[in-house]
Each structure stands twice: as C-alpha cells, then as structure tokens.
C-alpha cells in the first residue's frame, strides 16, 4: 500500500484510506481530503519537506509525516 508521502511531484493519485485519528485526521478531512478525492502532488519544499499538493482546486501544504497517514492509489 502506498502512502501520499511516497508519491513523486507531478503525479495524481486518489485517496483510499486514513491511518491517523483525532485532530490530524479531522483536519485533513476538513481541508477536503476525503476518500476518493484526487490529489495532485505539486512539489516538495526546497529543504525536502513539507510537500505541496493540489486538492479540490486549491493548494495545500502538509508534512511528509502527515502525508504518511494517507493511503493512496
């Protein structure tokens, strides 16, 4: 199973499941990352972390540690 952390910039994936719970999980979902949502990985920050993604038509940044909680395919 791949997580969002492993996706290279330029690829588009869709969300399969979440691993986290509580505030982080809710925050991700509130920001529009729900099951089936398409995510386009735009870039990685100059120092290698966090990453920038496009989701539901806007730009969002999240840390790789957080992206690891999102299973994609």
């Amino acid at each position, binding site marked *: 199973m791949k997580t969002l*952390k492993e996706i290279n910039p330029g690829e588009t994936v869709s969300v399969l499941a*979440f*691993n*986290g*719970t*509580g*505030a*982080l*999980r*809710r*925050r*991700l*979902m*509130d*920001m*529009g990352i*729900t*099951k089936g*949502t398409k995510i386009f990985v735009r*870039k*990685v*920050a*100059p*120092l*290698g*972390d*966090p990453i*920038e993604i496009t989701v*539901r*038509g*806007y*730009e*969002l*940044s*999240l*840390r*790789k*540690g*957080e992206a*690891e*909680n999102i299973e994609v395919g």
Partner: protein
Amino acid sequence: MPTKIALAGNPNCGKTTLFNDLTGSSQYVGNWPGVTVEKKEGRLKGHKDVIITDLPGVYSLSPYTLEEVVSRNYLINEHPDAIINLVDGTNLERNLYLTTQILELGIPVVISLNMMDIVKKSGDRIDSLKLGASLGCEVVETAAIKGEGSLEAAEKAIALAKGKQTPAPQGKFSKQVEETLSGIAKAFKDILEPQRARWYAVKLFERDEKVLGPLQFSSEQKNKLESLILPIEEEYGDDSETIITNERYEYIAQLVNKCLRKNSKGMSVSDKIDRIATNRFLALPIFAAIMFLMYYTSVTTLGRIATDWVNDTLFGTWITNGATAALSTVGAADWLNGLIVNGIIGGVGTVLGFVPQMLILFFFLSLLEDSGYMARVAFIMDRIFRKFGLSGKSFIPILIGTGCGVPAIMAARTIENEKDRRMTIMLSTFMPCTAKTVIIAMIASTFFPKSFWIAPAMYFLGIAIIILSGIGLKKTAYFGGEPAPFVMELPPYHIPALKGVLIHMWERSRAFVIKAGTIIFTACVLIWFLSSFGWTLKMVDIESSMLAGIGHAIAWLFAPLGFGNWKGAVATISALMAKESAIGTLAVLNGVADPNNTQFVMTGIASMFTALGAFSFMLLNLFDPPCIVAMATTSREMGNSKWTAIAIGYQVVLGYSIAFIVNQLGSVLFYGASFGIGQSIALLLLALAVFLLIRPSSHRGTMFGRAGKAI
C-alpha cells in the same frame, strides 16, 4: 438592543477586507475571553445600532483548534442575529464545507460570494441564484476589495435578522444518515433547543466532546446515542465523524457541479509566481533577499533614522527643552522638573521611539501576509524550525530580534499555532538586539580588545540558546504533547489592498503603544523615583539613592557571577529599563562626567570588574530578560500572566545560569581558583541542561503516534 451580525468564513477569503469595508474606522480590537485569538468588532457604517463581529477565519466548526472553538462558542452562546458567511468564489468546494455547517446553526445566514471580480476575470461562471436556492439561503455577489456588494450583503443580513428568517433545512446527507440524524433529534428532543435540533443532532452523531461535555449524559442516554450511531458506522465501515465529513463533501461536489462553469485554462498568474517563489533552487535566495530588504529597511536604515529622530530630536531635544523652559517659567520645583523631564518624557519617549520602526516593520509584515508570501515562508522554513518546536514563521521574529526585541515579539503574531507562538515570543529576544550591542562593544573593547570574535560569538550563542531551548522546552509538558498538524493552505498570491495593509499596520502599532505604554510609564516613574531619592525622600545623587541602596542589598546575588558589587547590581537593574543604559549607568556610578568619552568610561569599567566578571556581566545582561519595553510587550502578547511569568522566569533562570556557569568554571580555568561548591553547582547545572536536552518527552502524543515517529 443592537443587531449583532457575525462575519464567518475561511482564512484568506477576504473577510478582513469586508470587515474593514463595512465598519470603517469604528473598530475595536481585543482578544476573545481567555485566549489570545484576536477579536474584532465594529459598528456598521451608517447603522449605529448594528454591531459586526469578525470571527476568526476557520475551515470548519470542528472542536479541534482554538479558532474553531472560539467561533463555535460565539455562534452558539452569544446568539448573533445573523451571520454573513464569506465564501471565496475562486475556491468554492472547500469554502462551502464551512457553509454547510453554518447553515445548521439555526441562525439567519447570508452568503457573501466574494472575490467575484477574480472569478469573472478568469472566465468562470457561478450561478449564484441556483446556489442560493439549493442551500436555502440568500447569496450576494461581492468583491470586497473593491467595495462591491458589501453593503448589500450587510443590509440583507439586517433584514433577515429582523424577520428571524433561518435557512430552510436541506437534506444534505444520504438517506441512512438523514434517518439516523432524525432518530437522534427525536430521541433527545426534550433536552435540545428546537431551533438548533439539526446542529445538535449532527454534533451528537459525531460524538463531539465539546458538545457532549456540557450535556452530561447519563449512561442510559449514552447507550441510547451509541445504539443509534453504531449500526450506521458498521454499515459504512467508518467512524461517524468521517461519514459526516465525506457526505458533506459529496453533497458539495454535486452542488458545485450544478452551479459552477469552469473556464479551464492553463496556469494562473499566481501559479506562475509560485513556481518561481518556492522553486527548489530559487526559493532560498528569494527568501533571503526579501528578508534582507525587510530587515534593512525597517531596522537598519529607515526605521533606525526615524527612531533616532524621535528619541534624540523630538523627545531628546525639542520636547525636553520645551518642557524644561516651560517648567522654569512657572517656577516648578526641582523634583517636579526631574519627574517630568527625566521620568515621564524620557520614559514615554523611549516607548514612542519604537513606533516608527514598528510601523515600517508592520507595513512589511502586512504586505507579506496579505500577498500570500507569509504562508510560503512557513512552507520553506518549516523543515528547520519544527525540529526545535518552532514554526517556519518563527524565522521572522528571530531575525527582527537582532534589531529590536519589541517588534520581534509583535511579529510573532503571524504564527497561528499557540504553542509555536508562545515559544517564539519567549526565545526571540535571546538574539542580541542593537541595544545589547552597546554592552558587547564596551565590554569587548575594554577587556578583550584583541578578541574580534566576541561580538559574532554572542550572536551564535543567541542562536544556540534558541535552538537548545527549543529542543529542551518541547519536551516539557507546557510545550510538548501532540505536534500541531501542519496542514496549511497556500493561498493564491494577490496584490494586497493598500488600505487593508495600512489598517493592519496601524492596529498593531496602536495596540503596542497602549498596552506597553502604560506599563512602561509606570516603570519609568518608579525607576526615576528610586534613582533620584534617598530613603529620607530627599533628592540625592544616584550614589546615595534608594536604587543604590537596593543595589547594595542585592549585590550578593551577583557575587557568584563574579561582579558582586553594588555598581554592577544597579547597572543590571537599569539595563532592564533599556539595555544600552547599563553602560551609561556604569559611567555615572564610576564618576565619569561625560559618558560619551569612551576612554574614561572604559577606565571606569576596567577598575570595577575582572575580565571574567565583565564577561559574565555581559552574558547576564544579554541573556536575562530583555528590557522593560520588551517584557511589557511579552505580557501583552502572551495575553495572560501565567505565560508571561513562565517566559520571563525562564529568561531569568537561563541568563543567570549561563553567567554563573561561565564565572564559576572560568575562575578555575583562568584564575586558578580551587574547585568548590560553586563549581560543583555549575557542573550540576550543566548536567541538568544536558539531561533536559536528551531526556525523552514528558508528553508523548498518542493521537499522532505514527506522525510523531515519522517526524
């Protein structure tokens, strides 16, 4: 009874612009009770009886962030008469997510469909009539930045408030979920306000702790609720919170499909800017250039000139001379003259001297924030700063701190996360500011004339202290715990509205002058009194003043630091007023008539310290709490006395310990002192510091177990 209208919406949706547009200059800025989230209120232009409250920008009414809880509490407990919900037309899907929650509150809602100017320009089409009809509320198209539609939205809200017309309920969720929600509403209809049945039904279904807590359900009621929730969770294979969120977004996706015609084309201007601004190779140089420009303008050149002018010319010459002349014409007593000229004008002048610097700095910060670059600062710098419990945005306060700690602390306002902000406030003044460089310069040139490395070493020591403190403090219960999710929107770049930037800049500077000003005024008068009067309440020279008496009384405190004489003690006290005055005070105490004659001052200082004692004196004054203005600002920005005490207490302990360790161990290394109790304590302190740095955290995040490990 005035009509209360709340402004609610996502961050970056133009809410502040709309608020400024609606209220003009009648704004009151404060904090929400008990928290340091900014609260803004104002009267609607032309309607004296309408109060507009600007709620914090939130993405959701979930119970997890401070801003969300503040917004929720206001909407639920304060009963606003209507809500204007700002929706960014360029980002419909995510913005409408909050809307679906707001519509459940049982309060009249007007949607202000904002940024329509940009939407139209991009060629997209939004059918706002269809949108309003589907959501069951009024929609007004606005372009707050141009003032278009703002008043219309406010007037619609007033009309709705008068008619108490709440949004028509819409079945947003799937059949099974809707059935469960009505089941919950029916089962608990006796305890829930009928107007808000929908809101409560959803919150109970989500098992929202902040809602469940005050209801104090009996175990029977809890079981009842669970029996309603569990079957559907099983059916969906998800928890109830996830089910609701998924269904909200599914509903919105369908709605947006119906109402939005996208004119799809290539990259927007914002995308093009971002490609360069956060580019792998260009991001850091661009960042460095912007920071340099901001620092150079607000701290070294323009800001410095303006501040020096206020300090030296305006207050130092014009007002002082004017007041002296005026006082002597009316034949005022000497003490009154002293109080007004030295105490009040001197003290208040110091505070106001910061204002030009502050204005320029805040102008830049507002530009960075309103243009969207600030979010990129966090994006670029996060990797470095989160390692020691700070935010990527902490870079700016720390940088500003090398100029002056006061605007540095104020600059921490841009950090949303409360823990990060507190930590930044506490640590950014460890960078030697320009006033402290006066101390460094004097001590270094007197005692270590050949050691050119001392000044740069102090900056590196400042950086080291910030990093090590961050690592150590993050492990304490106060700063530890779950790392805040860094799930942050990168808003599109736009050209900031000058009016908004100016209002922003003015508000922040004014807040500083009012709060810091009152504390400093009191402190100045007090210090002036102590240094000009003896215990018999007669005016005396500083050597026989009460301050000198206090210096004698507390000199023993500084003995372990290597300068246990009263002059050092008095200089340290007066350094709290303004760091650079430590040197001036030493000059006066050593009987140097002209403190500007560096050679005499150096001789004077050389006679009272050993080299090690002087070094330790310098360390103490660099790393103990900053001057009174910065402490007053800390108090203002922390917003409560407990956190102010923690911050200043930490600075006291740290500054003292560093000077103590250096003096105790230094006396063995350089002066051949024997190893005694002091040295043992110094080693113990060092060991303690190392322990605090390497021990495991006292609070392990359980919720973020996985995320925590990855970081």
